[in-house]
């Protein structure tokens, strides 16, 4: 991570283990191809983030 900041000058944001994002992808896109898909509402997004452990303010679903 220190090298990333050094190379990019980008210290903001969050860094997440790949396997966490794999689990996020499975939940996020689970029904994307279904004819019954009607979007992800904020409550469902919150549940998905909580399910995979993305609970910091960075992953807040509410607007500023």
């Amino acid at each position, binding site marked *: *991570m220190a090298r990333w900041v050094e190379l990019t000058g980008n210290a903001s944001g*969050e860094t997440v283990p790949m396997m966490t994002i794999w689990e996020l992808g499975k939940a996020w*896109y689970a029904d994307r191809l279904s*004819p019954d898909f009607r*979007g*992800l509402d904020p409550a469902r997004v919150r549940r998905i983030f909580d399910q995979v452990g993305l609970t910091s303010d960075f*992953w807040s679903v509410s607007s*500023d």
Partner: protein
Amino acid sequence: MARAELTEREWAIRTWIYAHFVEHAVPPTSGQIAAEFGMTDEEARQALRRLHEAHTLLLTPGTDEVRMANPFSAVPTPFPVVANGRSYFANCAWDALGIPAMLGGDAVIHARLEVVDESIQIPVVDGIPRPASDYLIHFAVPFRHWYDDQIFT
């Protein structure tokens, strides 16, 4: 996350666009949508704009062409994914994982790490990336601002 109310037909068009992406690795044109749904090209363009406004897909700015139907990208990116017997482009590192997560089956994720000028490959076998590596994925934009500028995000 604000979302325009879509009609059932517009949702059906969304579903068909995704099916087209899965089958052909590219999105359909407005003309193809019009032919499939028995509508005029202008009606198809209007539907695409409504789907864009509802955040169900993203149009290339200033056009009625699909740029993103997440996790798919209509334009080449540093994140090609071979899955389902085809080669797709993902919008970002997360979507590179999202394509095999969505499609199921085996896949090979390619990623170009431009900052360090390296390429990596991550096979997905039996539903799991292997090896379950210690790669990290960086997110620059907080979730609440993802939809401010999706191409940057």
